[in-house]
């Protein structure tokens, strides 16, 4: 299905969790979010590998050349043309409610991210940790499983797959999540170290989720999804605070 490519407006912000580099890449489509066919889009030159010198053309600001004024301006070297965040246009409608590429991407990233979190917290089941840590881990597990049901349900209603293809992330920032190496290190940890390592890993995991959620709140269009994102941000932030307390900071 052809979709009109919206005019690229600098103020139109795109979710960067998948690191998409152009509006065309977030047009979405039946194959999932961030379809990179970019049909009709101008070709974007691939950055060359290797070393090169940064350009000194384009606007360059040295000390005393900053254009904006302000009380602390001497410390600020803000560059030009930073986009103001705003939701991208819709790419579909379901049950009369429109959704945009940010909504699709957020859900497609959160479903696997939640699954990874569930597997992390399940590692606690046969390890020695304090009751408070176990209780928090179990509660995180069941709430994230339930969240994923809602998220997958929406993607299904929208005709989008539950997760994006691996290679849709590879060219960008990659999909946030735990690596085999990190999980192995956690499993291999001594009983004395396990709980602290577990908390550190889960803090990082939830921090990543909060990041994705913060962007969706600003760039998403579908009210149910932006509200889910708001709750992800709030709940993961509260969990992190609790874990830092349990860890003794």
């Amino acid at each position, binding site marked *: 299905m052809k979709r009109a490519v919206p005019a690229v407006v600098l103020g139109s912000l795109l979710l960067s969790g998948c690191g998409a580099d152009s509006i065309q890449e977030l047009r979405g489509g039946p194959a999932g979010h961030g379809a990179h066919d970019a049909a009709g889009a101008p070709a974007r030159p691939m950055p060359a590998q290797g070393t090169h010198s940064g350009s000194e053309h384009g606007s360059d600001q040295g000390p005393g050349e900053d254009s904006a004024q302000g009380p602390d301006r001497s410390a600020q070297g803000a560059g030009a043309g930073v986009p103001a965040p705003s939701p991208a246009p819709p790419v579909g409608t379901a049950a009369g409610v429109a959704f945009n590429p940010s909504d699709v991407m957020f859900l497609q990233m959160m479903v696997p991210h939640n699954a990874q979190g569930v597997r992390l917290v399940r590692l606690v089941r046969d390890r020695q940790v304090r009751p408070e840590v176990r209780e928090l881990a179990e509660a995180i597990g069941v709430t994230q499983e339930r969240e994923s049901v809602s998220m997958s349900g929406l993607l299904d209603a929208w005709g989008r797959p539950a997760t994006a293809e691996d290679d849709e992330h590879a060219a*960008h920032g990659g999909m946030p999540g735990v690596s085999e190496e990190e999980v192995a290190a956690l499993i291999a940890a001594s009983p004395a170290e396990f709980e602290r390592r577990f908390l550190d890993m889960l803090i990082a995991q939830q921090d990543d989720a909060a990041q994705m959620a913060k962007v969706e709140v600003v760039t998403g269009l579908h009210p149910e999804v932006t509200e889910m994102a708001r709750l992800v941000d709030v709940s993961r932030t509260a969990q992190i605070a609790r874990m830092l307390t349990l860890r003794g900071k």
Partner: protein
Amino acid sequence: MHLRHKVATGAAAAIGVGSVLALLPSIPAVAHGSMSNPPSRAYVCKTEGPETPKSAACKAAVAAGGTQAFYDWHEVSRLEAGGNHRQIIPDGQLCGAGRDKYRGLNLARADWPATSVSPGPLTVTYHATAPHANSNFEFYITKQSWSPTQPLRWSDLEHIRTFNNQNPTQFTNWTINLPQRSGRQLIFSIWQRVVGSTEAFYTCSDVNFGGSNPTPVPTPTPTPTRPTPTPTPTPTPTPTPTSQPGGTWRAGTAYAVGATVTYGGVTYQCLQAHTALAGWEPPNVPALWRRL
């Protein structure tokens, strides 16, 4: 955290049900980048190895904040920044981008591995694992009044130079002019993406001009960085209040299975023991609360 080898998600659990280490063939994760010369704190510790820190500072950073910061050394970023760095990153948390995942980078220590530098031109290098076109790079250095045992504040930074509309490659060099300084300083950079994203990356690179820093002037601002934990038995948290049956839901309260609360005029029953948190209000978490 970024995937090097993707841990099995639900769809692929058939490969090894119940095994956390059931792995899929993976796309190697790339992320974005950090300063490689002079190396950022994240770069230094990832080079030492997240599981094998060598320097006292990297050991302390791992002890304070975990290894994840160094597995994900190239993702010290704020997705939602959009130029609003000073609004979203508190004083004392600049090096860690204001994120708890990277709190180990904020440690105010005088023994971070540092690159020797002199006033005058310095060629700096940014190692971008996933270069992004059209970005702005801002470079700052700490003022002479700053001292490494002080948490880094925005007001401690002096702007050196900004390069706009850059198209970084895997290794990109710029030449910046370092002012007169003595002792240990920090070179701070902000890589702000411009097209297609509001994401910004932050780096702290410890440098040493030789000579000494001024004696730190005590500031009235409380230290926002968390102290390095000592190896003592883990603390027991203050017992959380338990609920009254049917009382109003409140964050911080420990609820047992079967406990009842009201929220928004509706009564709920607890399905899973937990301590209530913001974001887990009864209508929001059907896995924890059943509406009666």
